[in-house]
């Protein structure tokens, strides 16, 4: 069933929590609702289920409005899975799931029918909770409890499934467990699902679309790729992030940078010879240290290339799988000429990028300070039959400094800077 929210607003007293929100959820879609704390996500759910009386706004389920539905009919339309369900009372798991049938057992005079018991059993099978049937609900783990609540929601046979931060109190295995289950149910049963999620990466990984709220307004709605870009996230959450693609799931994942501290830029130029991913941390440290950084030559598929792009660092780029061309090498040397120091992070050296080490040699000969970062234990960087090691040895003999980590690197550069 589709769900459409039209011009929904809500205020707690003077404070307007929801401002004219409208969106549509397609039948069978898994929609994530996100936003910073206080943006109105939970309030939105509560207005949809009519637990809170929204001022205006119509909600349509399958093109039919919700006005005039009895509480029982509402309960057959929406099933809600809250963040946590706590009770001291000794309900068994079966009791809890059976509560999902309350709107379906029409008369107060009747008990559970065979159909109710069957539906409950099915729901528990789907959520792999049948073995808990006779156990006391409050004794289960967080993830197990949430599965039981999801079973209850399924037993309710709703048209739309609503979840309010279902993974909030779960550890990482619990989170994956629940989200996998939701995805499976969504795909197999085709229940329209709306989940308020606080974890950006879970949302990106599991949701078909994401609705992003900010201060009660719908800021953006679309696929994770569309909504979760660094600009939008910066404007809504105030955090700088890098966006990558998870190599295994192809889903987007977000990497937040740490909160920006005041950088005293002095613009001293440093050129970084790197590759294979080890350069990222050096780039960041240098950047945070106020240096103006350039890098090269990097293959466009190299992760250090992406790191550089994130930090808006000028890079000499090479085509995929190609060795460093003479033009790129020359540009590399030109950047070295414009720098005061050259830093070499331990990158894997193959025939294609051996020239980067040659560039380091050039830098030293030109009188630039060259600082080498020692590779990690066991990390092999020479894939050219010892020629790289030889070049490195040569650099050290000729006066290049070797440091163990980025702190040492920064202090070395500082003394040089004077």
């Amino acid at each position: 069933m589709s769900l459409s929210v039209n011009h929904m607003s809500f205020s707690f007293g003077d404070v307007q929590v929801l401002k004219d929100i409208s969106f549509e959820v397609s039948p069978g879609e898994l929609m994530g609702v996100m936003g910073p704390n206080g943006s109105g996500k939970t309030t939105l759910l509560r207005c949809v289920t009519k637990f809170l009386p929204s001022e205006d706004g119509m909600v349509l389920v399958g093109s039919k409005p919700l006005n005039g539905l009895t509480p029982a009919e509402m309960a057959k339309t929406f099933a809600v899975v809250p963040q946590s369900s706590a009770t001291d009372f000794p309900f068994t798991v079966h009791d809890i799931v059976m509560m999902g049938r309350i709107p379906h057992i029409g008369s107060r005079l009747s008990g559970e029918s065979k159909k109710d018991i069957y539906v409950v059993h099915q729901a528990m099978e789907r959520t792999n909770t049948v073995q808990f049937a006779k156990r006391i609900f409050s004794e289960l783990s967080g993830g197990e409890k949430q599965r039981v609540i999801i079973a209850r929601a399924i037993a309710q046979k709703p048209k739309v499934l609503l979840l309010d931060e279902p993974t909030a109190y779960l550890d990482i295995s619990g989170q994956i467990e629940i989200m996998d289950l939701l995805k499976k149910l969504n795909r197999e049963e085709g229940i329209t699902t709306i989940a308020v999620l606080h974890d950006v990466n879970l949302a990106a990984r599991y949701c078909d679309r994401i609705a992003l709220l900010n201060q009660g307004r719908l800021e953006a709605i679309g696929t994770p790729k569309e909504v979760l870009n660094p600009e939008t996230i910066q404007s809504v959450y105030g955090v700088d992030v890098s966006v990558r693609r998870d190599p295994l799931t192809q889903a987007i994942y977000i990497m937040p940078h740490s909160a920006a501290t005041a950088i005293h830029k002095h613009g001293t130029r440093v050129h970084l010879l790197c590759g294979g991913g080890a350069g990222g941390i050096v780039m960041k440290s240098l950047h945070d240290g106020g240096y103006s950084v350039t890098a090269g030559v990097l293959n466009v598929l190299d992760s250090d290339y992406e790191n550089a792009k994130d930090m808006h660092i000028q890079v000499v780029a090479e085509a995929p799988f190609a060795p460093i061309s003479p033009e790129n090498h020359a540009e590399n040397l030109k950047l070295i000429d414009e720098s005061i120091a050259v830093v070499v992070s331990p990158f894997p050296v193959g025939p294609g990028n051996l020239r980067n080490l040659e560039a380091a040699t050039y830098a030293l000969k030109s009188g630039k300070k060259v600082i080498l970062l020692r590779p990690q234990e066991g990390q092999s960087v020479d894939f050219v039959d010892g020629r790289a090691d030889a070049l490195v040895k040569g650099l050290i003999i000729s006066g290049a400094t070797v440091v163990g980590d980025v702190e040492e690197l920064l202090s070395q550069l500082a003394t040089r800077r004077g």
Partner: protein
Amino acid sequence: MASKSGSAFDWKVWMVIAIVASSVVGFSAGYVLGGVQKKVTLSIVDDYGRTVELHGIPQRIVSVAPSPTEILFAVGAGSQVVGVDNYSDYPAEARSLPQIGSYTLNMEVIMSLKPDLIVSSDLVPRAQLDQLEAQGVPYFIFATRTMEDVIKDLRLAGSLTGHSLEAESLVAGLQARINAVTNKTLAAGVEKVRTYIEYYPLWTYGPGSFGNDMIRLAGGANIASNASNEYPELTPEFIIAQNPQIIVYTVGPMTTTTASDFADRSGWSITFAVSHDKIYSIDDNLVSRYGPRVVDGLEQLAEIIHPELFT
């Protein structure tokens, strides 16, 4: 209630109605037993102004308080008493009768004694007496506040039980003894001795109580005669300020007070009674069992308060 169309609704609703209805009917079934109506032959008004109607002289009387027990035995109706309360210990014959509880009455024992009359003092919870009345047993309350009430109660008891002659002669004798005392104690010119009487530390008989009346008749002036209620608890300051000339304490089975205690109470030694060692005791029963024994009490009290009149 949510309703559902279809036959399932109907039979379940009827089942519920049937359960409720059958409970009501079943529980009320026993009520069908009614009482038997008998002719009224005797009608007496008790101390609460209630008209009590009897069917003949009561032969199976249950007394639920010790004072009525003493009164009944005193007028010679002891053989008509079939049950007494736990505290009825006088006269000795009363102790061998079946006991029916005290304050909280045991309805079952009372009813199985098949009483035709209950006699009570006014301290017993009325609710239980009313219930016995609903079961068909009338009750008669003796509410005694003064010595005159005792005389009246003895006469009433006599009429109630068919022992009027005995009651009259008993009353005549008691009245003579009372007069013998009051002629002396209430004569003109006899000083009213300030008396403090204590039945429990600091607790005394106030205005409207029997003890208060007894002190008056014995020629004393009860220092608590203007207190707030019948059985007040006084403050030590008040008692000391009143400076009683005589202190009397009652002795019962639960009493631990002794004469020397009063001197130990701080500040009391400046009172006349303590400084002159005018501290006396009296048997509690003689002032609280409202039967003939109170006349003994009066005589003793008068001798304590006015020894000079009774040598």
